[in-house]
């Protein structure tokens, strides 16, 4: 038996990944060895160092185009752009996690998530000031998995990355300090459905391997370009797409989204809604463009259908929601549809547009969820829509910021949402799919109705007596809100530099 050859690793190109995963591993040790009093500070600092380090790493690596680890990883423009985006969104999410000024008990996370909801012990935990910090290493691992996901150049690594990012998320969804039952339900639901999706992905992987004899995306691409629509390959592709679309929250694989978004701690929801979406679309882009770029005719009708379905489901069901977190969940489904219209764009203009949209959408969504953590009543965050009536009188700043984020999600000019929409729809129309663009724009108008409903409530309605109060955020949340609002404005007013960056980064190697 010949000795196993260790693959060559380009450590420089993998530095961002290693940095954040290293921080995650160190976080586990901190959890075990650092005294409780110093643990929270240490964990936050460590997680931030890991993610900001990764962000700096991706910036320094800009322009790199190489395939490393025996062809398993591609470090190219899209990978680095999306890795940087994920790292930045992760760092902002960690800041949201670390907020201690809002919940009277000092943290939005429960100390022992496995205690059955409704028991005496569980009720004690709700007000216990004991703070557990495992959420930080979990988040670091998730970010590491997401960054790996966008760079995965073979299907097996893509699967491993999928699990590395998913498992921590399942746990984090169950960590809410209040409304434990909802949170536990969210965690279990997310885990079960996520496991299904993983199985689909794995089955698809097996079929594609059977059809092409390789798990390398580039090799699969070569075969797919030759053989085109071989049934085995098509079936495999379909199953892979199902697995990825589940993570991306695309209809009809979206059913977990509202429940999980609602049940998870809001800071975690913010993290899931922004960073996970970026990672999932990173993988979708790589799979479809590198793996099946030569056989685009096979997946274009599929993605077309999913895009229409997602936009319509998200926009229409969003209309009926009475809970802000659920409403934003349906909004994320609609936005997943808009993103898919960008995926349908021709070559790198679609790629660049999708990447820009991901960045813009991630930051805006993070800001919107961050604002949700401020509005509270006796039972934690008041995410019921009715509680937001007349909020503009209680807190003009929060109402104005929320309005701004919602208008950005609706895609009004002078916000990042508009620039993003413009970019993806332009790519769609260039690719000749203008009916899809028209559907997308009508869906935007429908979605605008439910965004607007919140604005109407905040500004034009009388506040309900005994309604929620607006907490004064500590420094971390304030920083997150300032950064996301500034980014949403800047990417709307002067998006030139970032668009250029996305454009120049839009070259996949494989």
């Amino acid at each position, binding site marked *: 038996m010949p000795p196993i050859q260790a693959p060559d690793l380009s450590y420089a190109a993998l530095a961002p990944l290693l940095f954040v995963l290293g921080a995650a591993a160190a976080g586990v040790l901190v959890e075990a060895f650092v005294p409780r009093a110093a643990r929270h500070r240490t964990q936050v600092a460590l997680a931030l160092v890991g993610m900001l380090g990764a962000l700096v790493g991706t910036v320094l690596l800009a322009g790199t185009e190489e395939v490393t680890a025996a062809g398993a990883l591609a470090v190219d423009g899209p990978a680095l752009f999306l890795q940087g985006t994920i790292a930045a969104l992760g760092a902002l999410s960690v800041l949201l996690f670390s907020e201690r000024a809002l919940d009277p008990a000092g943290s939005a996370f429960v100390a022992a998530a496995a205690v059955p909801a409704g028991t005496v012990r569980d009720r004690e935990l709700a007000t216990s000031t004991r703070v557990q910090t495992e959420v930080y290493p979990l988040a670091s691992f998730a970010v590491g998995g997401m960054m790996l996901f966008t760079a995965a150049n073979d299907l097996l690594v893509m699967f491993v990355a999928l699990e590395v990012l998913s498992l921590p998320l399942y746990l984090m969804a169950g960590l809410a300090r209040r409304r434990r039952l909802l949170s536990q339900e969210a965690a279990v639901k997310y885990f079960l459905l996520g496991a299904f999706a993983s199985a689909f992905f794995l089955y698809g992987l097996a079929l594609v391997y059977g059809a092409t004899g390789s798990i390398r995306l580039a090799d699969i691409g070569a075969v797919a370009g030759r053989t085109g629509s071989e049934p085995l390959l098509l079936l495999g592709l379909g199953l892979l797409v199902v697995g990825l679309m589940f993570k991306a929250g695309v209809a009809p694989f979206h059913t977990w989204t509202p429940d999980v978004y609602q049940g998870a701690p809001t800071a975690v929801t913010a993290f899931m809604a922004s960073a996970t979406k970026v990672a999932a679309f990173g993988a979708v882009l790589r799979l479809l463009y590198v793996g099946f770029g030569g056989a685009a005719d096979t997946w274009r009708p599929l993605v077309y259908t999913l895009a229409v379905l997602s936009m319509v489901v998200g926009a229409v069901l969003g209309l009926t929601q009475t809970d802000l977190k659920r409403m934003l969940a349906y909004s994320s489904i609609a936005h997943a549809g808009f993103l898919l219209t960008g995926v349908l764009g021709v070559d790198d203009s679609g790629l660049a547009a999708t990447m820009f949209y991901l960045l813009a959408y991630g930051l805006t969504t993070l800001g919107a969820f961050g604002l949700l953590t401020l509005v509270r009543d006796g039972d934690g965050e008041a995410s019921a829509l009715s509680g937001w009536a*007349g909020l*503009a*009188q209680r807190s003009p700043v929060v109402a104005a910021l929320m309005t701004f984020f919602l*208008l950005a999600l*609706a*895609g*009004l*000019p*002078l916000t990042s949402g*508009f*620039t993003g*929409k*413009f*970019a993806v*729809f*332009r790519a769609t*129309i*260039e690719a000749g799919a*203008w009916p899809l*663009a*028209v559907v997308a*724009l*009508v869906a*935007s*108008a429908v979605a*605008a*109705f439910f965004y*607007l*409903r919140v604005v*109407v409530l905040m*500004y*034009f*309605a*009388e506040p309900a007596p005994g309604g929620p109060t607006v907490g004064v955020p500590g420094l971390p949340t304030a920083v997150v809100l300032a950064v996301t609002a500034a980014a949403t404005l800047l990417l709307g007013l*002067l*998006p*030139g530099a970032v*668009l*250029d960056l996305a*454009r120049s980064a839009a070259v996949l190697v494989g």
Partner: protein
Amino acid sequence: MSDVPWLLLMIVVPAIGAAVVAALPPAREALARQLTLAVSVLVLLLAVGATASFDPAGARFQHVSSVDWIPEFGVSFALGVDGIALAMLLLTGLLVPVVIGASWRDTAPANASMRAFWAWLLLLESTLVGVFAATDVFLFYVFFEAMLVPMYFLIGSFGGPARRYAAVKFFLYSLLGGLVMLAAVIGLFVVSESELGRGTFAFDALRQLDIDPGVQKLLFAGFALAFAIKSPLVPFHTWLPDAGAEAPIAGSVLLVGVLDKVGTYGFLRYCLPLFPDASRDLAPWVLTLAVAGVLYAALLAVGQTDLKRLVSYTSIAHFGFIALGIFAATTEAATGAVVYMVNHGIATGLLFLVVGMVISRTGSRRVADARGLAETAPVLAGVFLVAGLASLALPGTGSFVGEFLVLLGAFPERPVFTVVATVGIVLAALYVLLLVQRTLHGPPPDDAAPTGGGATAVAVRARVRDLTRLETAVVAPLVALVVVLGVYPQPLIDLVTPAVEATLADLGGGTR
């Protein structure tokens, strides 16, 4: 003089003014409104300055400036005006200080502040200037959508009892139109990319494109839907009576006076020159809607019992005339349409102001509750009469010049549509004279049997006063302009005609 960046200043000054007013502490309400008035007067002066240094015989677009904005999309922050845009800027600059004066003594409802009102008003002015001054289609679109936000808050925060419904309806109708237009805007960009090699939004480059007629029709439809909603043309008009009725008076005046003109302005500036073949082919459809609107809205106006809804419907009828003038596409008709746009802004603005004054006295929007006004408030009744007559385009008022030119110019080209539209003039006389008769004349309500819901109105009626000095100052400039533009419209026509000719030249016809 021409080195002054007139247009940029007209956009930036009110925007900064809005920020400053919004940031003032709550105790400085008086300062806020003084500042707002000062800013709006400054904008008016800038508009006058821009007009004075504009040479009607010179280049089509003047005061041009262009800065790259988003090079990736070929977007530039390009400003410039022709005679048509300049006329609309003058109208905007005039109406904003007038409505500020009309709202001078207003108090804010419980959940809002007057500072917010002034700030939104100034922001609205800034976006309106931007819409008219943009020479880049993308920039135009940005302002077109951006102006929804201030208007939405003006209606929703400061409007009447059904303000929430009206505000949302207004926003959604406009947004839907706008988004469909966005698809066409992007489509236009893609076409320019394939024809010129490099995508652009510059109006001057786009109008020289030679677009496939089939594609033209699609793009035309996208733009036309947005403008038909904005104008509004029947059957896309149902938001206007709600919005016009529920908005505060300042909002109503600007809504029908200026905002709706963006729709007709858009037809003239963008639809005709960019899609000449489609404009010719599809003109009968638009004309059908226009003429249907003239008759239908006029009939509805006759039947209204709510003063503000009535005025809103008259406005829809007038927009039918304007659209007729534009799509008849002769120099006379289109010039008439632009003249009508300006005069309609003044006349309907005046009518809305007067109606607002009546409502603030009787405390009711019902036509019946305003009976017998001539007896107790003769000056107010007189101004009401002038506004009404200007609205029915009586000879001697500015609207007559516009309406006459439209009909005169449209007849040779589109005789059937013109003849049918003429019936609308008769109906206009009907609704205006009925309105005048029902409000100004007859016994005041307290002498008659009490009208339903008018109990408070009756109580208030005893205190009905004539125009205050402030109100006189507010309406005087408009009354004067109604007469001046009616008797001596030539400067306005001279300003507008070259631009109209240039526009129609792009259409490749209609040089009559």
